């Protein structure tokens, strides 16, 4: 795969993978900012703005804008992450010019018509009210509130019923103007387009953006309040737990070792230890998994599990014991070799569709890597040793590091379920 660095006549950079197999273009981009920059009391501003960018721009009302989008079969969307606001389009080659014009309008001249703002506010509030009743969503939000207490990351990215009510069109404009600028813009493109055509397209879409931004820089989260366990009661038959701890920064020299460790522990689906112990041997859950989320101000290794209330204590006990074993060095050379082999062999699977490639590359750009990373990545995985993995496990997986939040009606005095026991069917 050939990743080209393209600079437009107007000076906008992008990475391009040229591929004319399907007559379409996938474009991904991001601006620094995201929900962490929401003003206090107006949590959900970045998310609200992301929704409003397809609700009319320039001379086009919401309905007119959406009809134009439909007329050219454009897929367009915006999303607020914690550290960035993301945009994406997929468009057929024949409609590329019109898509660029619509995207430019959306970014530069969103309308914020009162009626569209109110309609979107209602939709967001319905989503918030619903999420507040879903145990997995509540558990994830509570985990962040506990782990990141005192930092903007602790706040709900989508906002609350109250904060969303407080957000006005001016607040979104106040966010948009400094955030949408050339300096922090990162673009990746994949598909049926030449470098020269992409250069013109970039200027058409982004050329009128201001150069710089005055977004404040956020401080690091600092040490997570380890050893916390919180329970939120909810009347559901199955409890959901989120568990996790601090992890390594994306550019830490041991980061790749932590990726291998995560794969062995809970990232590797059916080949992970947690899946083996909690699901396969004991039938305590349908799924248990972990992942590493390296963000600007913190990095965490986090997992979740859902188990019927009366057995949740057992699930958590089994998970805690397994993490402790790994922290104590109970990891074999064979496990490391297999995890590395899986991570290396699966890397190309993320590059078999235009949108997937564009997403992967945007992630690398946001993490501050160059296009050469793609060719070097498997070598970095291969270089990880058993000693590296054990060192990282000892540092990260100490049981006292764990932060656990549980939502449901769990009985946490673990009812013992032996491996392979044939527990009576409910």
């Amino acid at each position, binding site marked *: 795969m*050939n990743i080209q660095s393209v600079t437009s006549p107007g000076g906008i950079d992008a990475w391009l993978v040229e*591929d004319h197999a399907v007559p379409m273009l996938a474009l991904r981009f991001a601006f620094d900012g995201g929900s962490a920059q929401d003003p206090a009391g107006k949590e959900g501003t970045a998310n609200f703005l992301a929704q409003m960018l397809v609700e009319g721009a320039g001379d086009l009302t919401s309905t007119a804008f959406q009809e134009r989008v439909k007329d050219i079969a454009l897929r367009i969307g915006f999303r607020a992450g914690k550290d960035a606001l993301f945009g994406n389009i997929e468009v057929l080659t024949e409609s590329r010019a019109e898509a660029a014009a619509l995207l430019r309008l959306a970014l530069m001249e969103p309308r914020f018509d009162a009626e569209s703002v109110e309609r979107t506010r209602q939709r967001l509030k319905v989503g918030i009210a619903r999420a507040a009743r879903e145990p997995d969503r509540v558990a994830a939000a509570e985990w962040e509130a506990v782990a990141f207490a005192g930092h903007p990351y602790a706040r709900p990215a989508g906002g609350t019923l109250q904060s969303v009510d407080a957000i006005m069109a001016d607040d979104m404009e106040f966010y948009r103007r400094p955030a949408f600028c050339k300096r922090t813009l990162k673009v990746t493109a994949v598909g049926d387009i030449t470098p020269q055509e992409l250069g013109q397209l970039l200027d058409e879409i982004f050329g009128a953006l201001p150069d710089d931004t005055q977004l404040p820089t956020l401080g690091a989260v600092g040490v997570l309040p380890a050893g916390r366990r919180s329970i939120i009661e909810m009347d559901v038959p199955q409890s959901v737990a989120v568990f996790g701890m601090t992890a390594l920064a994306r550019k830490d020299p041991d980061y790749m070792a932590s990726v291998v460790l995560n794969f062995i522990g809970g990232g590797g689906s059916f080949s992970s230890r947690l899946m083996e112990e909690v699901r396969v041997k004991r039938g305590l859950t349908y799924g248990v998994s972990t992942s590493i989320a390296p963000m600007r101000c913190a990095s965490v290794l986090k997992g979740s599990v859902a188990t019927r209330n009366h057995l949740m204590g057992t699930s958590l006990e089994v998970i805690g014991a397994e993490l402790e074993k790994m922290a104590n060095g109970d990891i074999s050379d064979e496990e490391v070799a297999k995890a590395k*082999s899986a991570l290396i062999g699966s890397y190309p699977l993320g590059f078999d569709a235009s949108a997937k490639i564009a997403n992967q590359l945007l992630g690398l750009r946001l993490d501050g890597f160059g296009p050469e990373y793609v060719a070097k990545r498997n070598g970095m995985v291969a270089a990880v040793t058993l000693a590296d993995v054990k060192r990282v496990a000892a540092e990260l997986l100490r049981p006292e590091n764990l932060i656990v939040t549980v939502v449901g009606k769990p009985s946490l005095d673990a009812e013992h379920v032996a491996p392979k026991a044939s527990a009576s069917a409910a």
Partner: protein
Amino acid sequence: MLAPAPQTPVPERRGTQFKLANGMDVVVIPDHRAPVVTHMVWYRVGAADGPSHRSGLAHFLEHLMFKSTEKIADGAFPKIVMERGGQLNAFTSQDVTVYHERIAKEHLGQMMAMEADRMVNLRLTDQEVATERQVIIEERASRYDNSPNARLSEQMSAALYIAHPYRLPVIGWAHDIAQLSREDALAFYKRYYAPTNAILVVAGDVTPDEARRLAVETYGKIPANPAVEGRARPKEPPHEVVRRITLKDKRVANATFQRSYLTPSYATAESGAALALSLLMAIVGDGATGRLFRHLVVEDKVAAGASGGYFGGGFDSGIIHMQAVALPNRDLGSVEAAVDAVLDEVRQNGVSELELNRAKRSLRAAYTFESDEQEMLAERYGRALSVGRTISEIEGWPAAISQVTTDDVKAVALKHLDIRRSVTGLLLPESTRMTSSDNPTPKALGP
């Protein structure tokens, strides 16, 4: 590591189909952009083919297929795939059970050997079965018991179909899951898992000739099993009454309206009706330009969201489904009245040329976007072939969509938006009181 991108335009992807000597169907869709393949085995058997007192059996067996054979130890199947960098999963629907892997192309032969092995050599211990049953009970809790929306959907299916087994949940009722045994699973397996009843779909960096050679060496060695029976399912009687159900739950935040209509599917419809239904529901229900959204959300302001779609993939029938979430201060009666106004309008006056052309462009573009994603591409062929449709129908779909007229759309709206063939489901917060249980448009009071 990755193949260089081709620099010249190539035509729309095409599938090549052939049959092995033992009756197994094979379709290969070359896609040489990355050195990976998607390998899928589609069994023409799903939840609706199980005995009605053992709901969930097809899905139960799908889980157990990850247990052992003589060659593969218990739990080793996924590990072997993953150690080679592959991804895998399986799913069960009413009509099919599907096993799939995505992996670097050099492992395709091994994936075929492993799938061929578990097609006929599965062995199960009571212990494995007991533990997996617990896993499925947890799966049911995650997907259904914890979600009022999912429970309403389940109850709506139970009400929509009078006799047909589509009325039973794919995962099974909890009391049926608790009874599923090793013997049930093995009997089902022996009856339905055979090359004659399976379709192999391979998409990715492979030629039809290479795929054929590998398939002959693996699947081709399994003897034909002509004893596999075709699908014989109870037929729906005429639908004569309107059905309405209400689910109240304290975990419902906003009252929600849902309606499903029983319709023909692509596999059962008379000429062109399914195409017209696809376009009808793109116009009525798709996104912010759909009529439901425009009327309920933008104009009448009774709902926070409203959408609908046509699901025409079924073997015995299709379904039109629509839903709307009421705004906090609006009752479901006004939501339902607005939905019915939209449907009455389209039944009486049909759709405009402008709307139809927009919907056609949108559906044709979706087909192109789907062609960009290898897994979706493989699924497109598997889904259609497993319910008896042909490759020329699949690949001719964008052209066929272009031929549909506004008259065709109006005709299917009139015929298939028939309230007697529908079920209406209301999801209400527990505190809500209804004015009258037999009121055809109940007024739900705000929470």
